[in-house]
């Protein structure tokens, strides 16, 4: 049946795209954070608050 | 205001008269596009006749992309745009002046394209008023959004590649409506030509409105 293939590839593609984008965003945040020296990964700090630049 | 618009327009046309970039570069390119299409559809000449309306607008659109690029290239060198602003000209006047000059040049391109179509693809016109109205509205709309996006990308390093990417989607409604109107005017389709021309006019008005609103923010720090 074509509908099954299409329905499942629709769901799979959506999930894959969202997960891939989210992973990219989180990774990039981690890399930038490390480069800027805003704490090690998983420190649980919000860069928006931990950095003096934005806390003013 | 109108004096300033006219000043800028005359300046651009003078530059064109001296350099003849539109005439000896853009017009031949556009004609080449027609020839390339003729090669591509060589096996099926009737297809060419049927697609002549669309071909006209595709060719003019590419001409408009090149024209818009050229129109702002002459300003990018040596900070011309800043100089114009410092000279006390309002951003809107600069934009409309350039759009007017571009529209004149695009009209020339359109005339040559139409001549090329008549010669190469032997099209016949069944409704002149419709054809001319659609041509005028569409060319003007191309010129205005060409100028808007030219101003947006002026001076950017990748403007050459970015301008078509930005301009073509925005010009797509013109392409679509213009093609439908031309198909009717050339007698290849039984559509409602005047309502498509009305859409062209609406698109033109929208671009004029957007241009009006966007001139300030775009040119003040371009």
């Amino acid at each position, binding site marked *: 049946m*074509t*509908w*099954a293939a*299409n*329905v499942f*590839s*629709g*769901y799979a*593609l*959506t*999930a894959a*795209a*969202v997960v891939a*984008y*989210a992973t990219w*965003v*989180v990774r*990039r*945040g*981690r890399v*930038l*954070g*490390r*480069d*800027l020296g*805003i*704490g090690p*990964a998983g420190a*649980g*700090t*919000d*860069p*928006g*608050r931990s*950095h003096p*630049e*934005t806390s003013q | 205001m109108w004096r300033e618009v006219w000043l800028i327009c005359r300046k651009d046309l003078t530059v064109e008269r001296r350099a003849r970039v539109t005439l000896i570069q853009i017009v031949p390119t556009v004609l080449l596009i027609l020839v390339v299409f003729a090669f591509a559809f060589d096996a099926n000449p009737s297809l060419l006749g049927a697609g002549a309306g669309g071909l006209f607008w595709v060719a003019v659109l590419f001409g408009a992309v090149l024209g818009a690029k050229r129109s702002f290239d002459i300003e990018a060198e040596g900070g011309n745009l800043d100089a114009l602003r410092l000279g006390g000209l309002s951003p809107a006047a600069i934009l409309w002046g350039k759009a007017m000059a571009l529209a004149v040049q695009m009209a020339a391109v359109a005339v040559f394209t139409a001549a090329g179509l008549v010669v190469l693809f032997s099209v016949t016109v069944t409704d002149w008023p419709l054809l001319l109205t659609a041509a005028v509205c569409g060319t003007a709309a191309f010129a205005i959004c060409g100028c*808007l996006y030219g101003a*947006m*990308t002026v001076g950017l*390093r*990748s403007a050459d590649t*970015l301008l078509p*990417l*930005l301009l*073509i*989607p*925005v010009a*797509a*409604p013109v392409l*679509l409506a213009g093609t439908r109107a031309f198909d009717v005017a050339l007698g290849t389709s039984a559509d409602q030509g005047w309502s498509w021309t009305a859409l062209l006019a609406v698109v033109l008005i*929208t671009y004029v409105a*957007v241009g009006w*609103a*966007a001139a300030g*923010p*775009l040119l*003040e*720090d*371009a």
Partner: protein
Amino acid sequence: MTGSVATRVLGAIGLAAAAVMAILALWVSPADAVQGDAVRLMYVHVPSIWVAYGSFVLTAFASARVLWRTRSGAGGTEGVIADRQARHWDRVAGAAAELGVMFTGLTLVTGSLWGKVTWGTYWQWDARLTTTVLLFVTHLGYLALRRLPAESRARARRSAVMALIAVVNLPIVHYSVDWWRTLHQEASLEIGIGGDRNYSGEMYWTLLYSWATFTLIALWIGIHRYRVLRLEELAEEAALEELLSVRRSEPSHDEPVTER
């Protein structure tokens, strides 16, 4: 790096909601009388475009704020505040536009898959489909414009203008099915507590639930993206700062430095 307690909670809720959504959409909700199980694609297709609509509206709103805040060249403290607000809205616009582009892309793909099983074709140039592609491409262009290196203030203003031009297409996309004859079905859902007469109850609620799930997830990604954009700016400033300090530590010359 970009997580906080709030986003962790939001993320967990989003994940749980997505799991429940999969069960509801693929299993619990009924098959359609005409389309059969192909109707299940609706629960990803329609929420995708709703989230995309929301994102593009947010982009346009934020862009209007950017233009508003950078309108006058105010100096002093006022100017600093205006500049900071403009940067904030510029980041909001950027993050939302990226989400919108992704979800519009997903709408096109899932819609195409759905079209194949119901209409019998992947693609037709009808008004709804064509305008949606244009919406996708113009915002792709917007993202391309954002990426170009330029002075940040000028870049923000330029892309803000572009976003405001691009959003004009949005109502056209939405109403295209009512204004023109299209292969695509009319916009039909009437949101209300009593459901919608065109939808059977389970389908209606599953659709709304899916939309809520998509919104949660989009919000989570969007917040993180915003923070990453902030980090990118900080990284840029840090790099500039480093260059400046290298320059300052050079032995001074008598003649003024003219190059920039």
